[in-house]
């Protein structure tokens, strides 16, 4: 016999709330999208403001997805789904909205990737990782961002370079560690990097495990985020 009133487990509560919030965000993002296209390139001041709103909404959305995914991964309930993807297709989808958004903030976004490069990973997880970095990058970079991918020694290396001042010291050593407190300047809590590190680790192959690293010797002279997948 089952109890008539069963306590809802937190995962269900979390998932439902997030579902709800995403619906609202969806409407918000749609409206912003339509507003921006109705401006059709004129009124750059308004356009710029709308862009900021879009970026913020996307950040909130991505954080929600991250939250749910982290919870699930932590409680062993995330069904990882590794399949083959062409990097150009993947980046195409991941970057499509960021081109106009970053351009409106005066940042030029480039993508550099061999046409036939194919790798094996969980598309959903990686989408969140890339979105995360790009959401925050306008705070770090001056005016350029390059997203690239290549194969090296049997690893897929995804790199996101910027031409800003570089990442702060504390992040360089253990990028996956959550920093206590909030970085006042960037507003970052390191949660995004923690997620990226966790997502990387769920990718294993023949004993090797994915990982992330940050450095300030990027090809554009600023910071460099890299993700290695086996």
């Amino acid at each position, binding site marked *: 016999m089952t109890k008539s009133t069963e306590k809802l487990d937190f995962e269900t509560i979390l998932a439902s709330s*997030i*579902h709800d919030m995403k619906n609202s965000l*969806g*409407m918000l*993002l749609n409206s912003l999208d339509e507003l921006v*296209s109705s401006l059709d390139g004129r009124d750059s001041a308004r356009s710029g403001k709308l862009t900021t709103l879009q970026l913020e909404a996307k950040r909130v959305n991505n954080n929600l997805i991250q939250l749910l995914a982290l919870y699930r991964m932590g409680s062993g309930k995330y069904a990882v789904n590794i*399949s083959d993807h062409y990097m150009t297709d993947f980046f195409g989808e991941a970057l*499509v909205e960021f081109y106009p958004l970053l351009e409106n903030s005066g940042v030029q976004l480039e993508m550099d990737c061999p046409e036939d490069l194919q790798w094996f990973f969980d598309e959903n997880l990686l989408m969140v990782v890339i979105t995360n970095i790009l959401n925050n990058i306008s705070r770090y970079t001056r005016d350029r961002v390059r997203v690239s991918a290549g194969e090296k020694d049997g690893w897929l290396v995804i790199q996101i370079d910027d031409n800003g001042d570089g990442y702060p010291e504390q992040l360089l050593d253990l990028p996956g560690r959550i920093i206590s407190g909030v970085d006042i300047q960037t507003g970052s809590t390191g949660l995004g990097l923690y997620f990226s590190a966790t997502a990387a680790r769920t990718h294993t*192959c023949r004993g090797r495990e994915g990982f992330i690293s940050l450095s300030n010797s990027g090809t554009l002279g600023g910071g460099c985020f890299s993700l290695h997948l086996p």
Partner: protein
Amino acid sequence: MNIKYNRRKFLVIDDFSEMRKAIKRMIEAFGGVDIDEAKDGKQAIHLMEKRHFNIVLCDYNLGEEKNGQQILEEAKHRNLLKSYDIFIMITAETSTEMVLSAIDYKPDDYISKPFTRNALKLRLDRVAIRKAEFMDIDLALEQQDYARALTVCDQRIESGSRNYFGLLKVKGEILLQAGEYQAAQEIYQQVLDEREQPWAKLGLGQSCYYLKDYAGAERQFQELLNENRLNMDAYDWLAKLREAQGDSTAAQEVLMGATKLSPKSMNRQKDLGQLAYRNEDFSIAEKSYRTVVRLGKNSYLKSVDNHHWLAKSLTANGSDTEALQVLRNARKEFRQSDDEIRQSAMLEGTVLQKLGRDDEAQKAIARASSIGNSGQPASAADTALEQARFHIEMGEKDKAVEILKRIVRNHHDDEEVLARVQELFDEMGLGDEGGEIVTSIKDEMVQLNNKGVRLAREGQLNEAIMLFEEAVQGMPDNRVINLNAAQVLIMHMEENGVNEKHKRQSWEYLERVAKIEPENEKYRALVKMYHKLSS
């Protein structure tokens, strides 16, 4: 590549009208012009019955009634959506629930909310390109023309398609379906040598299973579970493996573990219920069937069969009153076929007898018998054996013997069925007569069959065709007769050219065998020959 969307017919299904409108505007922005909307499953199916849509965008969550997956299932099952049409499921998050289910029909892709116009277009483009590449293969598979499907696969791989792994995956699936287990194994191993991928491991495990290399199969499934404890396919196949190894208790345990992780999978719960019932673990059977009935509420695939099994489990557990209630509810809820009505009445009769309500029991039994006389009698082995058993319990030996004779005629070459028939004769105290009846009918069937085969060999195809056609009338479920009937028709067509009537007829006979034993080698060979006729 620029896909043109102005000629495609779109259907957008979402319970929020704002969302529908927003999606509609997105589609219009990239060229779509013909876009219908539906707010729920009922409306959607209604529209699909009237028009053939090429691209369906459907939200998974649609309120209280049918969800997106259930709409997809009904549409596919009823052929409202063809293999080359596109169905994209809109989900609120990475649809874990769907990934964990053992679903029969998968959407072509998922897209999670919120998404913008560009994201939607990119996703649609990707799916459309992939569908175009696989279209010929899908169509060939619909006809079970494995040879052609494989040829196209190889052609595409040879020409350097970007869908290299996708094509190999399909190739593996085709080979498994066609029964070419060795070849399938080689494909999967080839893929694994290039790169370890879950689907290839699963495929390798499946190949081993079919080749009876149980140790090999076990290795693959266990590895999959070690890598990802939420790999549901691995659980399902591990359970199958245990059953093949003769350990149905262990199989049940595996499925129980799996259903804990994915309680909402209707198919898995059904499998568990069946297994538990066979293992006489009636409390688990009851629990599973309860879930199946509950999950099936809005599904097109719901079946009164599940209610019957729930009732059987309940009565086995001593909950006779509830069993009765379930049967009565089922009668109200479903429009049942004659077979199902008879089954239901039989079950009711048994339960009522247990409850000591003899008058009502008699009435139910009378109902069951009356249906048995009018409609087409059931000859599928299990149902028929149950019917016979029922008559024996009611003390109606003559009726039981009639049915048993019919069973032997329809399954004269199936030793397992014949053994069960003998058991029932023994129960009635008619062991010896029963043995004689079985032997004589068997002989009769073998002689009939041999006569037909001889006629065919001597070139008297028309006579052979007539003989087998008549035979099939009398024993429509007999696998051997159906196969031979199909074969002589195909032989005739090979000699004299294709004739529509013969073609249709032979396919009908082949379909009957497909329902009984799709892995049958002769069946597969005949299907190949059938397809060769068309080319």
